[in-house]
């Protein structure tokens, strides 16, 4: 009796191991990531199913892999040959054997488990709060996304061949892949289950006087869902700014005093070209700026605001697609105090430049500048302007005559 044959090496793990596997997982988790899930739509699911068949259904016949038509077959006649030319004969006919993938045109509301709980009317729901840091200001963004919509997409994978053994090979692979009832395909980072609904045979083998071949169709259902990144919403949460100013003390020694620790909130809207009223859904204590596409708007001219309310009303609706940005301090901070208990005031003053030296005198001694703009375009301190003293601001370059100068500051 001979010695039993043993395999000396078994490939147990098909994937990477150890550190390389961990790096692979990290790459999977972080590639193309913005902390939001990737969008997944019908064509993504279709592409995913094509990849699924291509990667999981390798059938070899006579030493060659049975070609898979890597496109969803549709009714456009011209498209068929363009996809099949590589394994077509001189007449343009696909050479048997081959595997084709057909998607049922109808897509029904799905049976994916995500259907168990519903957020009505595609309302957005909280997804994550993500810290932000732009190099100056620390803050946070709130990510909100709609609930994914479950869809069931049915596919038919058809093998056309002339040998029974090819049918057996296909059947073996299908049953092995779905031996646990369902299989999975990763589509844009989402794990999508795939089920086998059944198999049918439409082989024209009863026609003795025609060319004969086997046609077997495996019916799959992909329990996917639709998640459109166009509907994702990222809105700034609380931004925190520290304002400092310097004052000479009596000993002519400069000291830096903290004016206030302000909770400044910035809310961004997208204009539909119709609405003139924008509601931040909380009472605005101190309104700092209102901008359209980065241009600072003038209060009581371009927009109106009633102190303590939550709404900004424009005299004319911003253009469709414009970005409206409202920066404010909440109602709880209506009264600003410095560390010594002194009340601070937010002032807004507007000037019209009529020529001459571009120096503007403000009404109250400035303690901190919040915004300085020329015709809505914000200027940067010491680049576009400078403070000459507590009540005078000088522009470095002369603006054009009749330019509107807006100054928002704390006194």
């Amino acid at each position, binding site marked *: 009796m001979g010695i039993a044959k043993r395999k000396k090496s078994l490939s147990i793990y098909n994937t990477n191991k150890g550190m390389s596997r961990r790096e692979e997982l990290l790459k999977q988790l972080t590639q193309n990531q913005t902390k939001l899930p990737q969008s997944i739509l019908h064509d993504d699911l279709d592409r995913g199913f094509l990849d699924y068949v291509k990667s999981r259904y390798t059938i070899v016949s006579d030493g060659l892999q049975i070609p898979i038509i890597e496109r969803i077959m549709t009714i456009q006649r011209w498209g068929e040959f363009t996809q099949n030319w590589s394994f077509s004969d001189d007449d343009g*006919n*696909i*050479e*048997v054997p081959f595997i084709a993938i*057909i998607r049922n045109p109808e897509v029904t509301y799905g049976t994916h488990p995500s259907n168990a709980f519903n957020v009505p009317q595609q309302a957005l729901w909280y997804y994550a709060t993500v810290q932000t840091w732009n190099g100056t200001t620390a803050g946070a963004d709130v990510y909100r996304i709609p609930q994914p919509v479950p869809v069931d997409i049915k596919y038919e994978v058809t093998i*056309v061949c002339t040998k029974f*053994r090819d049918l057996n090979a296909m059947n073996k692979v299908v049953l092995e892949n779905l031996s646990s009832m369902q299989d999975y395909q990763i589509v844009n980072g989402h794990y999508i289950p795939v089920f086998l609904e059944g198999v049918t045979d439409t082989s024209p083998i009863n026609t003795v*006087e025609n*060319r004969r071949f086997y046609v077997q169709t495996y019916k799959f259902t992909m329990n996917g869902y639709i998640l459109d990144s166009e509907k994702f919403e990222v809105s700034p949460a609380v931004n925190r700014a520290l304002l400092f100013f310097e004052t000479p003390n009596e000993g002519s020694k400069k000291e830096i005093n903290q004016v206030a620790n302000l909770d400044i909130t910035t809310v961004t809207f997208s204009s539909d070209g119709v609405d003139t009223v924008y509601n931040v859904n909380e009472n605005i204590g101190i309104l700092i700026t209102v901008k359209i596409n980065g241009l600072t708007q003038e209060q009581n001219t371009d927009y109106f605001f009633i102190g303590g309310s939550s709404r900004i009303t424009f005299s004319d609706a911003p253009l469709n697609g414009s970005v409206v940005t409202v920066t404010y301090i909440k109602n709880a901070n209506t009264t600003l105090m410095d560390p010594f208990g002194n009340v601070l005031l937010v002032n807004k003053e507007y000037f019209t430049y009529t020529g001459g030296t571009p120096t503007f005198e403000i009404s109250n001694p400035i303690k901190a500048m919040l915004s300085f703009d020329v015709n809505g375009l914000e200027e940067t301190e010491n680049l576009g302007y400078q403070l000459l003293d507590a009540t005078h601001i000088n522009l470095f370059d002369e603006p054009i005559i009749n330019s509107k100068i807006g100054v928002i500051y704390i006194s």
Partner: protein
Amino acid sequence: MDNKLPITRLGKFFSQDDFDLQVRIGQEYLQGDLNMKLVLYRVDRQKTDIDDVYLEVGTDQIKYFPPVEFSGIVKIEAPKNETYKEGLIRYLEPGNLVVSVYIKQLDELKLDIRYGDYIGYPESETKTRFYTVVNDGKIVSDNKHNMFGYKPYYRTIECSYVQDVSFRGV
């Protein structure tokens, strides 16, 4: 030696000599005037190593006898415009090849055309199409294949188109 039963019917009007004359005239017309040639690739069923379970063979694994040229009246049906899958994955391929061949010619060539054999027909100088025999027409008892009720004199072979991947004539 096989017993032979002489055919004596129609003896007052038609004899074996008349029958042979008619066949010779037909053969002269077919082979001399029309000169329609086909090539028969007979499958060597003994040497072809078939699958034990499914009686299948792989591509290029069928063994053939040396190809034989023969003459016949050729009729090719209209091309078939069909699909593999309910309107999708369309194919257009030649219709069936119907060949009428004199029994006498087959006897002279010591040839038999059998179900499953392959026939090549040069469609043009550069294109030869291959067909497989789906009806070898061995039963010639009907009136159509019978000369005036005297004896059968030709066979009708019907063949279906085969793709190049199945048979390439080599």
